[in-house]
């Protein structure tokens, strides 16, 4: 009689720790990427631009989640760190550095700045740290605007589309592959960091800093590492944004951007990589969906849309509040519940 397993059983720790334990998951993921890779052939530049924005947002959200969700260090300055990376990458790129080098350079500058602003985290926690990172946001915004020689000040800084070995990634579909590649790389880095010793140290710090110190976690070093890595990845996202829009100004990296990244990880699910991805998709798509809704409504019921359009911002806020009340663990929990439901379908118990 042949026996079939009715679940996932591991015989080694290594297998249990694997990113994708089942073959089904691997197949799904491969199919997903195959679809992603061919979709630029069929989609128009509007859809592709949304996908590009989502991918960039994913890097930003995943990196903030590493700092805030995994390591428990609140940051209100993530948008500004993104800006540092964007300006860094733009400056390197304008000096003639090849694209990937400029991207890494931007990330490195951002990591350095992030670590400097992370120093207070040794003494400050929670809301106090949030305020000190808010200061970082304001200081960096000031620098973007007033370091005219370096950042172009109020006039902004033009950047050329990325070029690798003479091939210019100047359309939405072309740059999509580039951004997708970098995003996958960044997500893999964060996923693996969380599974490694630094990642476990981050979680220990988040859960209770004193216990973490008692078991030999160097609080200062690991908090700085979290700030450094998070800002580095934010800087990479910023570098991609700079090369994608080809023109950066201080207004693009305002407080609002920092808040929307926080919204992404709250809606997606704190401390979860998959959650950050969901959050990034949700927050980027929401205004587009509301726009489509209002513009299609204005054709059918102009009176109704006249009422709804001014309420758009309100709808956005309402969504956030409802999420916090009904799904405080974020979209990722909904995803897990859905998966669990289908796993045993139709024999749920």
């Amino acid at each position, binding site marked *: 009689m042949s026996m079939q397993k009715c679940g996932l059983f591991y015989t080694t720790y290594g297998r249990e720790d694997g990113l994708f334990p089942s073959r089904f998951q691997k197949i799904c993921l491969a199919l997903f990427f195959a679809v992603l890779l061919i979709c630029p052939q069929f989609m128009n530049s509007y859809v592709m631009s949304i996908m590009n924005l989502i991918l960039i947002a994913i890097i930003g959200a995943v990196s903030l989640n590493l700092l805030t969700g995994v390591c428990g260090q609140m940051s209100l300055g993530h948008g500004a760190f993104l800006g540092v990376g964007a300006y860094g990458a733009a400056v390197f790129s304008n000096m003639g550095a090849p694209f990937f080098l400029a991207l890494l350079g931007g990330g490195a500058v951002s990591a350095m700045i992030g670590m400097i602003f992370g120093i207070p985290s040794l003494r400050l926690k929670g809301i106090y740290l949030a305020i000190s990172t808010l200061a970082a946001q304001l200081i960096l915004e000031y620098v973007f605007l007033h370091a005219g020689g370096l950042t172009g000040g109020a006039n902004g800084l033009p950047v050329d589309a990325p070029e690798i070995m003479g091939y210019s990634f100047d359309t939405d579909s072309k740059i999509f592959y580039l951004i997708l590649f970098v995003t996958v790389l960044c997500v893999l880095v964060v996923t693996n960091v969380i599974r490694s010793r630094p990642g476990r140290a981050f979680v220990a710090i988040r859960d209770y800093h004193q216990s973490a110190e008692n078991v030999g976690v160097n609080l200062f070093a690991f908090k700085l590492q979290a700030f450094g890595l998070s800002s580095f990845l934010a800087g990479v996202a910023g570098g991609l944004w700079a090369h994608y829009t080809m023109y950066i*100004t201080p207004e*693009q990296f305002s407080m609002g951007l920092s808040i929307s990244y926080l919204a992404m990880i709250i809606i997606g699910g704190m401390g979860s990589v998959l959650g950050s991805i969901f959050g990034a998709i949700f927050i980027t798509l929401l205004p587009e969906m509301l726009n489509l809704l209002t513009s299609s409504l204005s054709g059918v019921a102009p009176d109704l849309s006249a009422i709804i359009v001014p309420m758009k911002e309100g709808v956005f806020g309402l969504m956030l509040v409802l999420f916090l009340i009904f799904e405080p663990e974020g979209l990722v929990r909904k995803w897990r519940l859905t998966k669990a439901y289908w796993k045993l379908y139709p024999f749920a118990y």
Partner: protein
Amino acid sequence: MKKLLVLTILVLIASIGTAAAAYKVGVLSDLTGPTSSVGAPYADGIKAYVSWLNDNGGIDGKPVELIQVDYAYNVQQALAAYKRFTSSGIVAMQGWGTGDTEALVKFVAKDKIPVFSASYSAHLMDPAKAPYNFTAAADYSTQGRAGLKYLRESWKEERAPKLAFIFPDNPYGTVPIPAMKEYAVELGFEVVGQENVDLKAIDATPQLLSLKKVAPDFVWTGGTTPSTAVIMKDAQKLGIKCTFLTNIWSSDENIFKLAGEAATGHFGLQGGVIYGQDVPGMATILEVTKNEPQMTHFVRGYVSAMVMCEGMKMAAAKGEVTGESIKEALETMRDFDPMGLAPAISYFPDDHRPNMSVNINTFRDGKLEFVKTETLERKKEWLGL
């Protein structure tokens, strides 16, 4: 043979594409974001002109179809909206703020889509940097310079007039300041100070107290109408006797609602006329708005659409209407008079400043009152600065 077939099909598809029923134009508006109080009337002005044009024959018989997207003053959303426009095949676009217009400078240059924005930063006037950007009003620096010239000419005393600047510390606020300072000194002003007042400020007393010590005769304010109202009210409270010169976004019909009598006697710069002002083009505006008073931003949006459509008409007269042909047509535009609704407009291939003029209004009896149109010489060295 196969290649030929594919080619014919492609040409057919392309010709169907261009022979579409209407010219599509994207309208990027802020209807719900932080600048919506001025963005909405501006967008209404654009729509009002285009619907009037469509009722009166359109462009060579073809109507103009507007695709409006509200981007809530968010750069990411502006980018997505722009891509939506280009996917639906627009030939030109009406833009809005500083952040989004700058973020799109390179995209519109690459896609060859002429953009009329309501961001009047001087560097957008230089075709070497922003080849597809146009505006229907002079840049902030030119407006400021012209305003200063007016103040200097109306100054009667022997001593040099003292001038101070108040502006928010953001790109929009800081952009014209160096140019204005330089020109002020050239005109014989004594520049005595500068202060930053945030756009969301509810109190400007500390800044005004330090200005009070230097006793300026004139104070430039570049902000929004609410922030200007705060400054004017606090100045009155502190008994500062100075005349304010407010920029294009710092004063409109709401100034009296917000500042009350504190606004009386100060000056405001505008790129277009006031609703109801006695100019030939006003008759149409009164007709399309059914005598319902509109803000001056409405008129400016109206003019912006009018100039763009004039460019499209010129392009249509020469041949096919594409983004590129509209740009080329616009660059041959010389002294186009938008029926008196704004100073006459010319564009050159190497200079996109629409004119060197600004309308100066004063605030009296709860209303804006037109004083004069001040015009400067079109100096090469001022382009982009």
